[in-house]
């Protein structure tokens, strides 16, 4: 009997082990696409893979554009891969990781922050395609301001077509302004007018009200103040070349003489007296309780605070409109004005568009996607609400802002027309290191005495030298 039990036990254990082994093999086979990553959109087939910064919901939202594209190019299969990231820097890091892993996407949606990094190392220039399809593309360039295009020029070549953009304009809370007994600021208000406005707002509003709120980042932080004071923390120069583009698409533009082969930021400039002056102005706002010490991060909590009338003013772009609307602000509850004037009224802007990767499997197909995405049809599908400023002038109209405001929505595109020297975010190929060097010293610079400000700017200069020490 015992022998029988033993045999039974042996048989059962073997069976169990066999079943377990078979189960493991079966599971491994079933999950093979996941293990090898072939279930990632665009991998393992000939689809054109497009990487955007966003969530799966954002990728799904692009489906309408993909459907429209499929009607024009049924032979090109497109898959959008949404990559979640805290900010653009984080997004670029993830793209670089994909490059290192040998699985780069074919096309990437890149903002100004990464434009030169991609142009220098990863992206394929669009020049040949633009020359080839010049007749088709003339309509696009006629509708897009050359400043935006110039931001994507690098050493004489164009790497991206601007799809959306935002300038750092000044939002203000109309309720807070009215309580202070003030009217809408003038178009050419100055930094001293701005300070007086903040002081009046502070006086007329509750104790927990913040007249000026700003965040510590490359866009909308200290840089717009530096630009308004006709300086920057990096020395800005321009490279030659690019005539083919300007002569071909903007021959009669009034700002033709300003255009170049692209921006260059090769040296630090934190020791410029005007940089000190600009920081000192902000330090004064903090010291007098008119502005907050800038916080790290993207200011995600800001919309709710602004919508609940606890913030008076803040620099932001057109991307803020839809957020304020969704937070319950009426179209008369807020408005927007140009950034205050100092020595100049040059604004800061950022833009974004698709870049074709050098490693793209089918560059011609990628170009067709880029070209289609810049069409009026595609852009109308992508931007049904004012959650950014479309690069096409014709789309920034009454209809887009109907029901959401602001009343002076024209300020958004007028920024480029009225101030043609308005420039992009200073973002050399070493942008991530440059941004870190800026951010880490801003809080210190504006939070203490004059001595601390000088130390912080010296530290920034040193950090920027390190960041820029290896020029491409």
């Amino acid at each position, binding site marked *: 009997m*015992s022998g029988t039990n033993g045999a039974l036990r042996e048989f059962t254990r073997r069976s169990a082990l066999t079943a377990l082994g078979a189960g493991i093999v079966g599971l491994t086979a079933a999950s093979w696409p996941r293990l090898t990553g072939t279930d990632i959109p665009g991998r393992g087939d000939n689809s054109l893979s497009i990487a955007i910064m966003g969530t799966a919901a954002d990728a799904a939202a692009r489906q309408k554009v993909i459907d429209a594209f499929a009607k024009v190019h049924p032979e090109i299969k497109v898959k959008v891969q949404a990559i979640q990231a805290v900010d653009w820097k984080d997004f670029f890091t993830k793209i*670089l990781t994909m490059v*290192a892993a040998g699985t780069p996407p074919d096309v990437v949606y890149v903002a100004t922050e990464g434009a030169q990094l991609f142009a220098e190392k990863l992206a394929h220039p669009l020049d040949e395609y633009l020359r080839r399809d010049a007749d088709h593309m003339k309509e696009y360039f006629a509708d897009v301001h050359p400043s935006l295009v110039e931001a994507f020029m690098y050493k004489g070549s164009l790497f991206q077509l601007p799809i959306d953009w935002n300038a750092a304009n000044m939002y203000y809370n109309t309720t807070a302004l009215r309580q202070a007994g003030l009217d809408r600021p003038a178009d050419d208000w100055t930094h001293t007018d701005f300070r007086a406005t903040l002081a009046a707002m502070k006086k007329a509003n509750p104790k927990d009200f913040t007249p000026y709120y700003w965040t510590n980042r490359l866009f909308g932080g200290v840089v717009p103040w530096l630009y308004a004071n006709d300086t920057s923390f990096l020395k800005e120069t321009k490279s030659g070349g690019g005539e083919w583009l300007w002569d071909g698409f903007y021959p009669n533009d009034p700002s033709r003489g300003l255009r170049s082969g692209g921006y260059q930021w090769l040296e630090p400039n934190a020791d410029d007296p005007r940089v000190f002056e600009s920081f000192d102005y902000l330090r004064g706002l903090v010291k007098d309780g008119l502005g907050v*010490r800038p916080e*790290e991060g993207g200011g995600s*909590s800001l919309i709710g605070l602004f919508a609940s009338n606890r913030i008076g003013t803040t620099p932001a772009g057109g991307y803020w409109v839809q957020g304020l609307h969704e937070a319950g602000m009426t179209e008369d509850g807020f408005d927007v004005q140009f950034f205050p004037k100092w020595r100049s009224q040059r604004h800061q802007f950022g833009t974004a568009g698709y870049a074709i990767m050098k490693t793209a499997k089918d560059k011609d197909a990628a170009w067709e996607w880029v070209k289609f995405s810049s069409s009026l049809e595609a852009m109308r599908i992508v931007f049904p609400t004012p959650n950014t400023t479309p690069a096409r002038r014709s789309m920034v109209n009454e209809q887009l802002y109907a029901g959401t405001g602001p009343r002076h929505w024209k300020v958004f595109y007028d920024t480029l027309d009225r101030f043609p020297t308005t420039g992009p975010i200073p973002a050399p190929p070493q942008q991530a290191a440059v941004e*870190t060097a800026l951010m*880490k010293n*801003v*809080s210190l610079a504006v939070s203490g005495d004059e001595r601390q400000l000088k130390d912080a700017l010296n530290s920034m200069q040193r950090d920027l030298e390190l960041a820029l020490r290896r020029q491409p």
Partner: protein
Amino acid sequence: MSTTTSAPARTGRQAVRKSPHDAKRGRVQQRWLPWAFLAPTIAGMGIFTLLPIVASIALAFFRWDIISAPTFVGFDNFAEVVQDPTVRVSFLNTIVFVVVAVALQLGLALGLAIMVQEKLPAWLRVFFRSAFFFPLILSAASVSIFMRYLFNEQFGVVNWLLSIVGIPAVPWLTTPGGSAAVVILVYVWQNFGFSFLLFIGGLASIPVETYEAASIDGATGWRKHWYVTLPLLSPTTLVASVMAIINALQVFDQPYVLTRGGPGDSTRTAVMVIFESAFQRLEFGQASAIGVILTLIIMGITALQFRLSKRFVFYQ
């Protein structure tokens, strides 16, 4: 007296005479089966631990930005790292952080463990063990995001509570002292639960008779803990401190999310500099060099701890 010449009754599997083939198979199984079971773990360790370590050490001697081919630069990366003031400050910050955070973590964990173990009824002990361990299972990044809202100067709950008792708003995250304090506070809050559980285990293993003997000898209150609990808990303290120090030397999530290392470099840690060098500046060689230096420091401190432990660890 009779002898039995017949073979003993054969029972079960032992009774089955093994053929030479079976015997050989048995020897092969005996030799290789343990390795077969260990193989997945060894492969995992090799691929995901050893290989990256070796690759990282090798990479420290190259300049590499992911995109271009690596260039051999010898000890240049180490030289640049040593001269970089940000790296120096970050290592100093890390050392200060380790000293303060580990002292607070172990002190808090030990104090609470003694309190919970001694003073509370059984059901409350279970509750506090869970409650103190709970923060550890939360994502450090999520906790830090939440804490950033709590400690916001203008709109945070902490300053609102302080304002109720008339204390003006404290710029927690925008001044060097404030941000360092918040980073340490958040880190200790999230991590002391692990040390707490170790101490609870250690306390439970101390024989009651030892305390009774101490009581008979006249020891009461803190003297009992000083002369009985702490010496008998010393092996646990050694393990807890080694683990706490190694973890604290690798702190990243809390300062990265709460302050991004600022203001200035005041909360920048060694691992943050590794991350920034690699993934923001694309200087993977330098990042590896910093990693190698940090690893040597961790190994040095741990070895020192074990060496010194001979003097203060009391094994029963």
